[in-house]
């Protein structure tokens, strides 16, 4: 094992070894020479010298031990004794080690994630000087990525003095062809200083040079290590190759090192040159702070500068604030809180496990009172006995810790598999590294010491040593009290976890019970992005869509087919304003989602038509413009008047031909998240939309009779028939719902698992206390029964002993759960952190578990034969 080698190097064991050899060889040779002088033959002299020296290997071993562990004898004896004692009570050993393995394993697994995500710095040089510069929403500042508009960025870049260099970047998904199957790749467009800010170089080739974003020079791309391995066979000659991005030939100029995955999930980087146009983009901005400038100073300067930037002061000043935050903070912000919640929860599990084992230690110490008394009577000092007992608990905890490491090794990948994709930022590698192992064993030793101390003191109390005088029968006093306290604490901690998990579960159910406004079952979606290069006009795009739609409707098992440019619960949508006709005015700030859909879309998605008609194939470019509005649009805009026949326009200054007539009203749907308010939407027919921007990204929607996945292959081949160069992303709407609920699901599942562990552990604890109290009171129970107490009353007595413990735990736990609920508040959807139903059920579950745990000891008491008891006790 590595650490032994390390230890060996540390103390220069090789020198030790050589010295020892030399010393012993000298002895044998000196004896040999003396033997020869005394007249022996050389062979006999050697034999005699070697025989008299004894077993050289063994002696060398023992000498080395003496050198390495000065007090190995004392500690070793304790250790051997501890192991022997554990082996004599295998039941205790197995239960205690398993319980601890569970507790320490869960903690180790969570710590390995926390360690690599929260504690490890970003993989860039001097990461402490990297900052994220943006307008942050004042409310909920950690869940929304801040950004800066292009106009402001250019101005900021020109005028700021606090940062050595700044850069901005934005998602730019592209279709990669010319390297295997067409691939929709997670591209990021970055200003050319991006890599300079991060001080990161390419592993092969180079990064961007200034002005490489300008038209004519910008046909270059840098690929990630993963993409390079997946698509270019890790061939260094990939640099210099020409691939097509959205159909445009681009030269690969560099391959980034494996650790460079920024922003999260990036597969390739393209140069970005900012051009101010009709539409302003807002993107995240990063910067490297100058030496000698503090973060506060930079933020102060940015706040001052922000008020004179072109866009910022005019828009939403009360909602946003100029802020400068550490890049690492920003990157881990979405996962920090869930991870801290896990850390807390898992610490509770460990505390319960430890309390459990402390209880077991107490119970075992009680059964060893005789042994301890004898040893004390023979002159063992109290300190000596405590040391012995502590060694035993340390051995137990360390064995539990070893089990925990094994468990963590098995569990961590499963835990990560449950985690939503976005939960693990910047491509960190998570595993059991040295730090984690040290953590696990440190934790074992610490808890073993803390939780072994009380039982050791308790077991060696002087009054217990009088035990011998009592002939082996004792009353039960303080030990019972300590055990009760431990069990009450266990139940309380378990209740906190159970309530927390219950709240999250209720919240998840609330989210899943939201009516999204469409029917997600049996819906398959296929998304295609059409590049400008091959599809330069809206007409060409529409031709593609029409051709695919026609072929899809003939697939067996498909009930309805439609298309929409941005699917609900997808990655993005287009929102905007519009103008109204007939004396109606759009309320200030009112915006609507503007999906472009095919006639079959509403039927395929299962969106209800409330009045009017759906689109038809006749709503084409030569027919009058029409729209369908959602319920909330109809209600808000025309205030109870019939919306059918009213007119709106998507143009800022509509001409006579720009008016679109409302022909139908459909139900509202949740556009981005199930937890959002329903989004007002204005639908336009596919054949009447002329801007390529609204058409290039299109999702085909198919409602099938059953098992939507079954038709996935035929859909792929149909789209390939129409255009073999475009990658297709296929998913079901159920996948989409899983996607948007992944974070809540993950939290609820992990906390649920922890709380189940907690409840089981505290059940074991309750059982242990009740069982041992029944065992200790066997004699008393026997006397009661002999005096005429009924079996029933004995059972009642046992249950009565349990319920106050559980009840006290539940009460204390409820107070803790109220506090914990406050921490969870941000994760809860339409569930109050004080939800009485959740609190009540959690309490009932624990009380039920308590009674169940008491039933076995109660049954034992019930079946006691007083005659047997009184004769043998």
């Amino acid at each position, binding site marked *: 094992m590595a650490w032994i080698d390390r230890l060996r190097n540390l103390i220069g064991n090789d020198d030790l070894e050589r010295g020892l050899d030399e010393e*012993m060889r000298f002895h044998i040779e000196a004896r040999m020479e003396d033997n020869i002088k005394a007249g022996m033959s050389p062979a006999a002299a050697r034999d005699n010298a070697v025989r008299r020296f004894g077993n050289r290997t063994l002696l060398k071993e023992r*000498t080395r031990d003496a050198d390495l562990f000065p007090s190995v004898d004392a500690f070793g004896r304790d250790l051997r004794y501890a192991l022997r004692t554990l082996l004599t009570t295998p039941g205790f050993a197995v239960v205690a080690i398993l319980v601890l393995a569970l507790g320490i394993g869960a903690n180790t697994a969570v710590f390995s994630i926390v360690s690599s995500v929260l504690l490890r710095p970003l993989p860039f040089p001097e990461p402490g000087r990297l900052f994220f510069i943006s307008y942050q929403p004042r409310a909920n500042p950690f869940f929304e990525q801040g950004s800066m508009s292009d106009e402001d960025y250019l101005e900021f870049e020109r005028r700021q003095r606090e940062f050595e260099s700044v850069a901005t970047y934005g998602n730019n998904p592209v279709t990669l062809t010319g390297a295997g199957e067409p691939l929709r790749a997670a591209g990021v467009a970055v200003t050319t200083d991006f890599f300079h800010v991060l001080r990161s170089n390419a592993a092969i080739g180079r990064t961007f040079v200034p002005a490489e974003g300008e038209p004519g020079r910008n046909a270059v791309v840098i690929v990630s290590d993963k993409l390079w391995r997946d698509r270019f066979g890790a061939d260094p000659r990939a640099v210099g190759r020409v691939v097509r991005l959205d159909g445009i030939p681009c030269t690969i100029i560099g391959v980034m090192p494996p650790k460079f995955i920024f922003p999260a999930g990036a597969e390739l980087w393209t140069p970005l040159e900012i051009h101010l146009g009709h539409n302003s983009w807002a993107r995240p901005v990063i910067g490297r702070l100058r030496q000698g400038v503090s973060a506060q100073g930079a933020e102060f300067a940015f706040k001052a500068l922000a008020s004179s930037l072109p866009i910022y002061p005019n828009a939403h000043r009360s909602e946003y604030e100029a802020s400068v935050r550490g890049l690492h903070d920003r990157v881990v912000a979405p996962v920090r809180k869930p991870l801290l919640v896990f850390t807390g929860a898992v610490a509770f599990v460990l505390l319960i496990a430890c309390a459990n084992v402390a209880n077991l230690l107490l119970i075992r110490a009680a059964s060893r009172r005789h042994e301890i008394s004898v040893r004390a009577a023979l002159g063992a000092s109290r300190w000596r006995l405590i040391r012995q007992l502590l060694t035993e608990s340390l051995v137990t905890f360390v064995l539990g810790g070893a089990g925990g490491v094994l468990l963590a090794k098995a569990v961590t990948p499963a835990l990560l598999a449950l985690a939503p994709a976005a939960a693990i930022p910047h491509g960190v590698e998570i595993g059991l590294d040295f730090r984690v192992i040290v953590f696990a064993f440190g934790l074992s030793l610490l808890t073993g010491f803390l939780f072994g101390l009380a039982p050791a003191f308790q077991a060696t109390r002087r009054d217990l040593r009088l035990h011998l005088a009592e002939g082996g029968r004792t009353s039960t006093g303080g030990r019972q009290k300590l055990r009760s306290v431990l069990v009450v604490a266990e139940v309380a901690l378990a209740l906190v976890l159970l309530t927390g998990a219950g709240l999250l579960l209720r919240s998840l159910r609330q989210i899943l019970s939201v009516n999204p406004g469409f029917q997600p079952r049996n819906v398959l979606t296929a998304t295609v992005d059409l590049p400008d290069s091959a599809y330069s006009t809206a007409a060409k795009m529409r031709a593609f869509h029409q051709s695919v739609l026609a072929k899809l409707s003939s697939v067996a098992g498909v009930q309805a087919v439609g298309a929409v440019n941005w699917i609900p619960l997808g990655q993005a949508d287009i929102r905007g304003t519009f103008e109204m006709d007939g004396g109606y005015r759009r309320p200030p700030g009112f915006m609507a989602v503007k999906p472009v859909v095919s006639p079959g879309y509403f039927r395929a998605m299962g969106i209800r038509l409330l009045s009017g008609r759906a689109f038809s194939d006749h709503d084409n470019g030569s027919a009058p413009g029409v729209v369908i509005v959602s319920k909330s649009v109809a209600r808000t805009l025309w205030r109870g008047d019939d919306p059918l026949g009213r007119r709106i326009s998507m143009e800022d200054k509509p001409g006579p031909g720009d008016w679109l007539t409302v022909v139908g009203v459909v139900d509202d749907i949740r556009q981005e998240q199930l937890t959002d308010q329903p989004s007002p939407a204005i639908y336009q027919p596919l054949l009447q939309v002329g801007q390529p921007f609204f058409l290039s990204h299109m999702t085909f929607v198919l409602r099938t009779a059953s098992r939507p996945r079954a038709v996935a292959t035929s859909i792929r081949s149909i789209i390939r028939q129409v255009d073999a160069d475009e990658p297709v992303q296929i998913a079901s709407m159920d996948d989409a719902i899983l996607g948007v609920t992944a974070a809540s699901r993950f939290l609820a599942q992990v906390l649920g698992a922890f709380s189940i562990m907690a409840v089981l552990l505290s059940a074991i604890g309750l059982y242990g206390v009740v069982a041992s109290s029944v065992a200790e009171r066997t004699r008393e129970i026997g006397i009661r029964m002999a005096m005429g107490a009924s079996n029933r009353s004995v059972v009642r007595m046992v249950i009565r002993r349990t319920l106050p413990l559980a009840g006290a735990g539940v009460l204390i736990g409820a107070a803790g759960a109220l506090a914990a609920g406050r921490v969870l508040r941000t994760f809860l959807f339409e569930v109050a952190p004080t939800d009485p139903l959740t609190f009540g059920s959690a309490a009932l579950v624990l009380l039920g578990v308590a009674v169940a745990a008491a039933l076995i000891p109660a049954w034992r008491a019930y079946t006691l034969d007083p005659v047997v008891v009184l004769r043998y006790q």
Partner: protein
Amino acid sequence: MPAHKNDRLQGTLDLLVLRTLDTCGPMHGYGITLHVEQASDNALRLEEGSLYPALHRMTQAGWLRAEWGASENNRRARYYSITAAGRRQLAQEEKNWAQLTEAVQKVLRPA
């Protein structure tokens, strides 16, 4: 370090080594073996190698000091000498030994 108080046999070996080094000054392991043999008229013959774990243990405990030196026939050998702590330990061990032999005497020849 009271670790070996109860182990009479080991205690005896410690006692012999400490006494030898205190009387004769620095010696190597083989020299100690020879001295014990001669001084006891060959009555005490140790398993010679078992001396080394004891020497190293006592060095770790601070009773002895070890250093390399040249032997009589000019070879490298490790020499041990007694330290102040070693002398205190020697006094203690001698007292223990006296008590033990006295006690055993009493049992063997009751007054």
